[in-house]
């Protein structure tokens, strides 16, 4: 298990989903909503094109926590708000900061952005420290 201190910034996670990521994520997750996998359909409903699944972006936020926490069991809780839309072929940056360490749990404020737009915001994570 990792050690955390109040005010500590966790390592940034940067990932650029490729053009076909939404198709692989649709298959892996079972969410085949055409706004994620069909460029024409997405444009037809007023989107700029295929958009990322919000839960894919949340998985990137989760990964930043488990990487810092030392494995999958370190993440005890994650709560996010989705805003705007994530797009393929643009870098996602996840930032995380420890706000409190108490009772074996580090409370973390975290967010994901793309081109300066927060696509996951007001997110709270709890990572086990012992």
């Amino acid at each position: 298990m990792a050690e955390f201190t109040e005010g500590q910034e966790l390592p940034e996670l940067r990932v650029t989903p490729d053009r076909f990521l939404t198709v692989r994520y649709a298959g892996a997750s079972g969410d085949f909503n055409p706004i994620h996998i069909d460029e024409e359909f997405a444009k037809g409903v007023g989107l700029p094109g295929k958009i990322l699944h919000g839960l894919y972006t949340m998985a990137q936020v989760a990964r930043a926590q488990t990487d810092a926490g030392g494995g999958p069991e370190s993440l005890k809780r994650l709560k996010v708000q989705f805003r705007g839309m994530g797009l393929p072929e643009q870098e996602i940056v996840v930032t995380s900061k420890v706000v409190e360490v108490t009772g074996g749990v580090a409370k973390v404020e975290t967010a994901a952005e793309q081109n300066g737009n927060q696509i996951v915001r007001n997110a709270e994570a709890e990572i086990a420290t012992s």
Partner: protein
Amino acid sequence: MPVTTSAIGKSYPPTTYAVGREKIKEYASAVGEANPVHLDPEAAKAAGYADVVAPPMFAVVYKSPAVIPALFDPEVGINFAMMVHGGQEFVWSAPVVAGDEITTTTTVKDISERGGMGFYVFETTSVNQRGETVCVGEWTNIVRGV
């Protein structure tokens, strides 16, 4: 048209999902998880797991079959054309590994209206084959123009 709140408290029949080694690998690869405990049974065993362990967010895979009937329930009455996924929370309490069978129950936790938007909140509780709670999830879907 105001939201209909009669479905608050309603539960749906539980679903059971059999967790497979290759499905964990497929999910882990899609989200970029490189930790070998998700991909390699030997690495997972060396780390003390019976088989490959699911990333925490794999919860969406075993919970989805239980959530979909609630989302599409006419009594809940979501207008899908106007729906966005507003928020999500998971609380994890035990690991999930290949070979587990995870049973999930969904309840309509709340339906409310603020500022012309409908808020639909669903809670899912997932337990493994030993009856241990592995993850509780909360989906918040927002419908514009209710």
